[in-house]
């Protein structure tokens, strides 16, 4: 089956990308757009190029697939110089998501995704199977396959752009602000989904953005660039947040570095608090006794159903009867998941104006309680840095299948 073959290829198929003094001078202008760039991107990693506008991010990226010809220096993909390759052939082997998405308006979604497979002469059945697989991979309804790009939302179009770039399972992906032109909520979703996808496919990804938050979230490594493609620091997100190399990096990262570190954590990574759980019909005396225990950090009891899913907070009045009522007096407020990024969790807490939020696992079962206090303790603790992990090593959200199972 073609799909299986493709997957097999991808697992060993990521290639490293190495810039060796790569230089680009446009026309006869004296100042190079990118000046002697040296950068090594390991196979299977996401390398984010981030920097102010005009610093040469796009140029650096486009030199890899020779959309921009090198003036000087070289770039090696899997040890092989791009200059030795035929440009069109090279490009077919490198997934490229351009900034403006650039879907073909006259071709259906399926036809768009099938572009490179067709160029490579895949047979019809293989193309069909692969496009169906890709639609599912990027979370698009197979029904959308016969639509034209105008009939899709911005977020859906971006997904198609990613699917199209992934079509022939290229060892290297270039993504130029792939989630740039969409609203924050959808961008967030696409980012999460791409990270989830990347954990499966493990491509070598060059990812351009001018948003440092996106860089921190997406990157295994981040190259912070200044004018002329000068790399000021090339390091993991936590290194950059904890020990910025110089003032430029510090400024670029911003004064809220401590807060940004929260983007690197998931709620499940931290030790949560515990609240007494109470089931409808349970004796309230029992619950009240538990509230008295010294190791219970949360001064409220949480009403849960028979599958341990949180239902609401029980107030003093709820507990004044003999048995726990079926509905709680106080609303639940925000409910977090262990896979949520800490920064979002904090935002939810603040937005919900709550001190505590129940955290559930991917089955919806209560896993603990997150409080503002936990977060502020984390931010103040010096050891926090060592717990941080790179994007791909981070525990991943459960896959979609189990989420759907949990919904039912």
């Amino acid at each position, binding site marked *: 089956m073609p799909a299986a073959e493709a997957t097999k290829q991808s697992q060993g198929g990521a290639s490293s990308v190495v810039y060796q003094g790569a230089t680009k001078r446009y026309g006869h202008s004296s100042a190079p757009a990118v000046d002697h760039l040296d950068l090594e991107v390991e196979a299977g990693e996401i390398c984010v190029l981030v920097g102010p506008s005009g610093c040469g991010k796009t140029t650096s990226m486009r030199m890899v697939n020779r*959309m921009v010809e090198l003036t000087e220096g070289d770039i090696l993909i899997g040890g092989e110089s791009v200059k030795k390759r035929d*440009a069109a052939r090279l*490009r077919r082997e490198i997934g490229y998501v351009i900034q403006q998405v*650039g879907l073909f*308006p*006259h071709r259906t979604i399926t036809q768009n995704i099938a*572009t490179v497979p067709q160029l490579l002469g895949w047979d019809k059945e293989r193309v069909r199977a692969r496009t169906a697989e890709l639609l599912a991979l990027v979370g698009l309804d197979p029904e959308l396959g016969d639509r*034209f790009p105008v*009939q899709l939302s911005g977020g859906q179009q971006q997904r198609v752009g990613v699917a199209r770039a992934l079509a022939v399972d290229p060892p290297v992906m270039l993504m130029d602000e792939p989630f740039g032109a969409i609203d924050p909520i959808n961008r967030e979703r696409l980012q999460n989904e791409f990270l989830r996808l990347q954990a499966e496919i493990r491509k070598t990804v060059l990812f351009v953005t001018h948003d440092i938050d996106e860089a921190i979230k997406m990157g295994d490594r981040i190259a912070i660039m200044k004018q002329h493609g000068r790399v000021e620091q090339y390091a993991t997100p936590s290194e950059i947040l904890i020990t910025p190399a110089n003032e430029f990096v510090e400024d670029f990262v911003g004064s809220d570095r401590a807060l940004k570190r929260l983007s690197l954590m998931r709620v499940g990574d931290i030790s949560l608090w515990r609240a007494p759980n109470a089931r409808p019909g349970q004796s309230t005396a029992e619950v009240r006794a538990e509230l008295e225990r010294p190791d219970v950090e949360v001064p409220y009891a949480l009403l849960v159903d028979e599958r341990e899913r949180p239902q609401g907070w029980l107030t003093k009045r709820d507990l004044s009867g003999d048995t726990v009522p079926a509905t709680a007096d106080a609303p639940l407020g925000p409910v977090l998941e262990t896979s949520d990024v800490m920064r979002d969790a904090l935002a939810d807490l603040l937005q919900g104006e709550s001190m505590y939020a129940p955290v559930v696992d991917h089955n919806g079962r209560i896993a603990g309680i997150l409080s503002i206090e936990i977060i502020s303790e984390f931010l103040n603790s010096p050891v926090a840095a060592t717990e941080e992990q790179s994007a791909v090593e981070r525990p991943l959200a459960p896959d979609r299948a189990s989420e759907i199972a949990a919904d039912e």
Partner: protein
Amino acid sequence: MNSGLLGMPLAAVGEVGEGFFKHRTGATLPCQARPAHLFCWDWATEHINRFGTPALQQFELVVISVLIGFAIAFILALIAHRFKPLQFPLLAGTGVLFAIPSIAFFMLLLPITGRGRETAIIALSAYTLQIIYRNVMQGLNNVPDSAKDAARGMGLTERQILWKVELPLAIPEIVGGIRIATVSTVAIATLAVFANAGGLGSQIYSSSNLVFPTAIIIAGAIAILMAFAIDLVLLTAQRFATPWRRAASEAVP
């Protein structure tokens, strides 16, 4: 422009029905003999057959001329698209051909190609060049840069980009050009009669028609119907060839 040409000797090709003089007896004066009468149904029903051949000739002239004009304009547009500096010289060149009055063009060609269909076709196709060329160019220039960039980035060659991305996306403008060219050629082809190439002009530019407009009206109506019919066919073809445009108009924003 046309009214000034009506008296030209070359135009003496059409003739009024035979009955014109024969039946002019007493009270049964047929309507075609009364100058003030605009349209004569009797004559029309009696002589409708005589418009068949000229209409067919006209149709042939139009189709052949537009096809030739399209082929040449299309190739010119592709050349200009490939070698951008040629874009404006070619526009100017086809513009000159467009600006020459058709009649003058026939006259200029007569000493070279003589009287006949070839002369008419040359003049008519030259006339369509500018319209079609400009539309093809416009269509190609309207293709979004992002689509071209993406195509190049995915490894399509320049030729593949042209045929798979740019030309399909330019179809609306290209067909638009052909439609304008066709409709105007239907009108101008009536002048082909001056090159002795027949067509509906043979029923229009006849000296006796000055006092007898029925034939002019019929020929004009046929020309209008022909223009409409061809336009409809082209429009339908375009709609079939560009399903994404229909999708766009139905898209939920």
